[in-house]
């Protein structure tokens, strides 16, 4: 809710039907999860909640989530064949219904895996194709996927945030919104930084090279 950023969020997206929330929004959540994970997963477990669980199949929500995880866009006519394509590309998929608690009715939890590397991303499709990533791994999150997003995990120590934001400002990018979270003092921390423009590669590399920074992912708008 709140005034939309862009009129193209109201008239749009251009999408494969039938539902902006249950189809197009689901593709975008899949795309965001894939980008935050940083690669195409080999194994995926999808937990559908609320309206996603009760009416998801009829809206092609399963096809849409998998399409996004494969890197397909919401207006890709091949979206209907995403399950076949996942099979061809060796992505194993398990879909279950579950209760994710007191969250938006169109919520989904995506467990992504490649070898030993795993990440879960939870999000909600809030209407009209708009989405919100609400959890990344252990961290609460809030990211809409409508702006370039930088996801940084680091060890929680003084100066980390200042060092990252300094590199961003030196690269000429402007920070629109920023959130930080940590599991507990001194443990791992997460920064979610939305910028007006995409961050240049050398800035990303500089951030990745900072002491204490564990993972950096540049997530383009979807």
């Amino acid at each position, binding site marked *: 809710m709140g005034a939309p950023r862009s009129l193209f969020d109201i008239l749009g997206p251009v999408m*494969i039907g*039938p539902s*902006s929330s249950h*189809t197009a929004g689901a593709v975008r959540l899949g795309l965001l999860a894939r980008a935050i994970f940083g690669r195409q997963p080999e194994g995926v477990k999808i937990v559908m909640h609320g309206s996603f669980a*009760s009416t998801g199949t*009829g809206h092609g929500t399963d096809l849409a989530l998998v399409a996004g995880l494969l890197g397909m866009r919401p207006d890709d006519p091949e*979206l209907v064949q995403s399950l076949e394509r996942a099979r061809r590309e060796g992505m194993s998929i398990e879909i279950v219904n579950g209760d994710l608690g007191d969250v938006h*009715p169109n919520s989904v939890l995506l467990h992504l895996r490649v070898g030993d590397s795993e990440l879960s991303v939870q999000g909600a499709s809030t*209407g009209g194709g708009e989405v919100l990533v609400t959890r990344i791994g252990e961290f609460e999150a809030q990211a809409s996927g409508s702006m370039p997003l930088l996801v940084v995990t680091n060890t929680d120590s003084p100066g980390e945030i200042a060092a990252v934001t300094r590199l961003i400002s030196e690269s000429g990018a402007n920070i629109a919104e920023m959130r930080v979270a940590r599991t507990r003092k001194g443990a791992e921390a997460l920064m979610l930084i939305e910028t007006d423009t995409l961050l240049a590669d050398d800035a990303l590399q500089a951030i990745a090279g900072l002491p204490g920074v564990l993972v950096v992912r540049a997530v383009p708008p979807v």
Partner: protein
Amino acid sequence: MAFSTFAELLEAARDHGSLAAAALAREALESDQPEDGLRARMAASLDVMREAVRTGLAGGLRSRSGLVGGDARLLAESDSGPVGGVFTRAMAGALAIAEVNATMGRIVAAPTGGAAGVLPAVLLTLAEDRGLPDERVVDALFAAAAIGAVIAARTDLSGAAAGCQAEIGAAAAMAAGAGTELLGGSAEQAGHAASLALQGLMGLVCDPVGGLVEVPCVARNGTATAVALAAIEMAGAGVTFPIPFDEVADALAHVGRALPSSLRETAQGGLAVTRAARELTGG
């Protein structure tokens, strides 16, 4: 941010000459992109809308459930109805897009996939009837989006959040306001048209049979198009609605929050739980 109240949008329209011009100027400012680029992007959406109408009217579509398909063509080819003309052509266009959407074809969410037929059908049919160029329709789409944004500032535009009124009701309000301005009405008249359309669909529940965007969604694109045209007809004649659009939108958001979960896209109430619905979906 887009304008979050209709009052602000109206104020800006006084400076810019129309809701459409005010909406476009604001979008250009907020997105830091030139107006001609934004217009080109909207024109591309208009192409998708027009293509979906063509695909739907060509017929031969049938959803995977088998529940919908073919009604747009029936309507387009009919000359036995009591009204006909723009009214019938617009409804056929709305059903066409809704059928394309239900069969997993390509559409523009307006503001959602389930309600995608109303706005393009109203604007394209009016423009064709009056011989208006595409640029005018593109303008009207910006006005429509700005009206939708005013509602979206108060409630998520989804059946799950606030019922069908937040999808098809919003679509009809957008179409009514933008259609009124497209036909030469003032920004104030467009506001009355949007209010008239929204009040006519307030309280409408989201009760999809089998959880599919098919029954009643496809038919509702047709009936909401009729409501939008009725609102344009009234506002164009000088009929006003005494509750300002901002307050009508507030009321819609309140009603949406008051709707039980069973009537918000869970397929657990309304038409979805009728005996016929259960038989149709084997539930």
